[in-house]
């Protein structure tokens, strides 16, 4: 059978080694990545509370999800403190601005489907895949916290999936439009942090591929066919 070149293997193992958490370059990159995570959790909290205003009968459950996000935010703040890093929050606010704007617009228009796609599917799928890739290269303190967080995020993803699945007949069109409007933003966000993520030994291609895998899985659960999903996913990849 084919024998594959061994140099590729050794290079890859080198890339899997842990970074030096104490260097200035690591801390500098971490100040932005960590801020994105903190801001993301804060916005997730706010978004779930907001979605509760559109779905009053589920407001209680959504408030529960929101509380979990605040707990995560505190955990990630502790991670920064542990490394002696100050999170660059202004950067993170700007980073989320386009997605934040789209969410607020959908909220004002009462578009539950769009709000759920942005928060409970796109952002959660992105978070889950990024956390999975971060865990093996995280410092021991952050690793433990992130492992706890990622379990919770599946609950949130599941919430979005279940609602969209139950309402698929009426929300399909809006779902596709929301995907077209927002998936390219996620890709741009990913490209924007690729350099910092690389310093943390998180590979851009891995991030994109794992995100698309999580996203595809979520849409599959919602009840879309693999062709519909491939078409939707292509919005992020092509063009």
């Amino acid at each position: 059978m084919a024998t594959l070149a061994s140099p590729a293997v050794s290079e890859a193992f080198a890339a899997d080694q842990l970074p030096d958490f104490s260097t200035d370059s690591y801390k500098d990159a971490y100040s932005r990545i960590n801020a994105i995570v903190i801001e993301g959790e804060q916005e997730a909290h706010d978004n779930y509370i907001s979605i509760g205003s559109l779905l009053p009968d589920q407001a209680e459950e959504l408030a529960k999800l929101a509380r979990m996000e605040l707990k995560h935010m505190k955990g990630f703040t502790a991670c920064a403190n542990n490394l002696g890093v100050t999170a660059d929050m202004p950067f993170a606010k700007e980073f989320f601005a386009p997605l934040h704007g789209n969410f607020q617009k959908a909220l004002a228009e009462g578009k539950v489907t769009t709000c759920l796609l942005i928060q409970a599917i796109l952002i959660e799928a992105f978070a889950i895949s990024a956390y999975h890739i971060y865990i093996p290269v995280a410092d021991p303190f952050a690793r433990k916290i992130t492992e706890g967080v990622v379990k919770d995020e599946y609950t949130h993803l599941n919430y979005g999936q279940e609602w969209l699945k139950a309402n698929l007949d009426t929300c399909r069109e809006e779902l596709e439009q929301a995907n077209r409007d927002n998936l390219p933003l996620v890709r741009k966000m990913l490209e924007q942090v690729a350099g910092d993520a690389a310093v943390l030994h998180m590979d851009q291609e891995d991030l994109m591929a794992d995100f698309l895998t999580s996203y595809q899985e979520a849409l599959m659960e919602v009840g879309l066919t693999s062709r519909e999903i491939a078409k939707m996913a292509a919005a992020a990849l092509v063009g």
Partner: protein
Amino acid sequence: MFGLIGHSTSFEEARAKARTLGFEEFADGDLDVWCSAPPQLVERLQVTSATGKTIDGAYIDSCFVPEMLSRFKTARRKVLSAMELAQKNGIDITALGGFTSIIFENFNLLKEQQIRSTTLEWERFTTGNTHTAWVICRQVETNAPRLGIDLAQARVAVVGATGDIGSAVCRWLSQRTGVKELLLVARQPQPLLDLQQELGGGRILSLDEALPEADVVVWVASLPQTLSIDAENLKSPCLMIDGGYPKNLDSKANGEGIHVLKGGIVEFFSDITWQMMEMAEMDNPKRQMFACFAEAILLEFEGIHTNFSWGRNNITLEKMDLIGAASQRHGFHTLGLTLPSDPAPADHTQPALTPA
């Protein structure tokens, strides 16, 4: 349910396939797009055995293409993600086709059981190598005599003798077929010596030394791009079984008396209407497939939900007997040479596999 994990033979072919299947957006993407693309469950199908039993299956394209071989992390992720997708779809036994099992073994992915939130259950997967080895041996046994080669008097060279399939082929040919002499060719000396000891015979030779002596050559190693075979130095007749992947031996060895047969390929007893195989490099894609794929189908027919072929050098003659008997029972035939004296093939039109 059985599963098959496959991939396209080139990036260009992958794009063409994507277009045909209605994934136009992916078809337009460049190689980087394909590197990030998740695996796709592209087809569900049913298969009906010669015994009448019907089973369900699925074809998963890993979205890997050979152009990604030099990208270790990409290749690793493609294989593991495709396996994850198979498991998440509840597929009981999935064959790792083409480069999938090669990447799995060479990159030692046994260490990578955890992928995201999924712990891969190895018992759901098979390399399909046991069936491939059995098919190759049967191809030697049935085709050599048709060329006038008496196996009891023949020297059979096995190129890639120490690999998982190669060592199983050596074991079978020496203990079951009874060839005059095995010529053992492989890159690493120590595994060759170990194999020779295990077999209690066989002569260790370099490729250049072995070829002129061989009546039959079984190739189960990939061929280096630079390999050239001088037909003048080969015996006539010479049966060459191309059991490697990809199958490109016919472009390297041709001439009077040289008969190259695609190794490890089986033909089902009736037509298959799956879309995926239409694109594979089979002469009769409605019926032919890699023996490793067929192994997953056979294990599902037999209700054997276990990693039947797994790891290296675990293929026993008993396992080859078992899978070989199942192969015949359920309606698979090994691919044979087409000789000028052969009558035209009969036309079978009864469909046995229909998309679900």
